[in-house]
């Protein structure tokens, strides 16, 4: 059927689930979860299975032809910050610096990884890498399902672009997805100055005290002071206590205004809603 304007959907993909959300309503368009699927335990970590789940969701809900934004969990890709080398002459210099940093951080060759960066020659820039096989599998599914992907982005980048203007100087943006924490550190000019991506069990952030201890440890490891404010964009299960944390030091501030009915999001649902 010929549509005047293709439907826009957002797909959140985490290691354990795939969720599709779309703007619904005629007058007041509100982003709502359309459907989601969870990976069977025996297939956890198989990216092809996540792609199959996405294809199934699209076919089941008749979403073929939609314009799609895909938000990938930080757990599925690699994210790091690169200091641009002195006397940069060409983009290839920045790419070489990013590849060298990849090798030193993760101890493997970047040849089988698809590397994309926000290339900057005058300030530190974010670089992300996704296995080429996974990207190929994702593109195959998008093509088979006739989805027009206008963006496939990491969750951290989507969150930073969405909430960057609200972040104050010296604050942190705290993301938790699939047992992984991403901490984005703002400098005195509220520009991105540091990035930390670490494994984190749910018990380490299950309450205010544990979370504060965990964050103090991370600050110590990074050699930066504790921030006055920590921003949390998506209130997910493990951070449910944040809504009731008053007078805590550091301050926890929720950025997400329009939360679903229960106020808590599953991992992939948070990703999907972050993309809309």
């Amino acid at each position, binding site marked *: 059927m010929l549509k005047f304007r293709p439907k826009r959907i957002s797909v959140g993909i985490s290691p354990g689930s795939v969720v599709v959300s779309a703007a619904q309503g005629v007058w007041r368009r509100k982003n709502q979860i359309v459907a989601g699927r969870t990976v069977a335990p025996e297939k956890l970590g198989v990216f092809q299975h996540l792609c199959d789940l996405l294809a199934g969701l699209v076919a089941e809900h008749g979403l073929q032809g939609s*314009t*799609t*934004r*895909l938000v*990938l969990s930080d757990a599925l890709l690699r994210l790091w910050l690169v200091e641009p080398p002195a006397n940069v002459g060409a983009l290839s210099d920045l790419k070489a610096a990013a590849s060298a940093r990849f090798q030193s951080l993760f101890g493997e060759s970047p040849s089988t990884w*698809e590397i*994309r*960066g*926000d290339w900057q020659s005058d300030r530190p*820039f*974010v*670089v*992300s890498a*996704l296995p080429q096989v996974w*990207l190929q599998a*994702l*593109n195959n599914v998008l093509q088979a399902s006739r989805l*027009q*992907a*206008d*963006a*496939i*982005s*990491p969750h951290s*980048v989507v969150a*930073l*672009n969405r909430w*960057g*203007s609200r*972040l104050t100087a010296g604050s942190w943006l705290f993301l938790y997805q699939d047992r992984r924490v991403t901490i984005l550190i*703002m400098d005195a000019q*509220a*520009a*991105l100055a540091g990035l930390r991506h670490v494994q984190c069990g749910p018990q380490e952030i299950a309450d205010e005290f544990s979370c504060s201890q965990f964050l103090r440890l991370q600050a110590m490891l990074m050699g930066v002071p504790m921030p006055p404010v920590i921003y949390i964009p998506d209130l997910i299960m493990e951070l449910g206590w944040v809504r009731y944390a008053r007078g805590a030091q550091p301050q926890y501030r929720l950025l997400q205004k329009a939360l679903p009915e229960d106020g808590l999001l599953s991992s992939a649902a948070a990703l999907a809603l972050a993309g809309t």
Partner: protein
Amino acid sequence: MKTIHINFATPGFGQLLSGAGWRFVAIAMFICLTLAGAASFIVYMNLQREELQQQLSDLQTQVKRLQKTKQNSATSAPLVASQEAMGALAFQLNLPWAQLLRTFDGLSSKQVALLELIPDPNTRKIAVTAEARNSAQMTRYLESVKKQEGLSNVRLLHHEINATDPQQPIRFEFEVQWSGGATP
């Protein structure tokens, strides 16, 4: 904070239509529509101009035709001839005949008879034919003509003795420049 551009999606039409792309497409469409409007306006103006030029050339042709007709009628031979004739007639009528006749009547006597007086308005000369009893009378007459006010350059053109006349008078012709009265 500046936007971070990291996107694993293959560049395509989908990206063009997303986010700011819609605005870009809207601006591009606006520019295209504006250009199309301007182009059609130019075409319309050109058509109008061609039409006006056609009308102008038609009018010019019409004016030329009218001018030609007018010229033809003005330059038609009978009219020119009649105009010239009328001009000549008016000139002839404007000549001071009375004054001339009075002058020559005063000169003529029993010795010299005036036979013919032909004025030429263009050269302002009067050709006169007269008869005198003898050459002395002729010479005297010419001298007296010379003395008349308004007449000059008296020139004897021809004289002969009329042998057929028993008194054998001298018939002579002379011309005289007339400088007074009406101008041609």
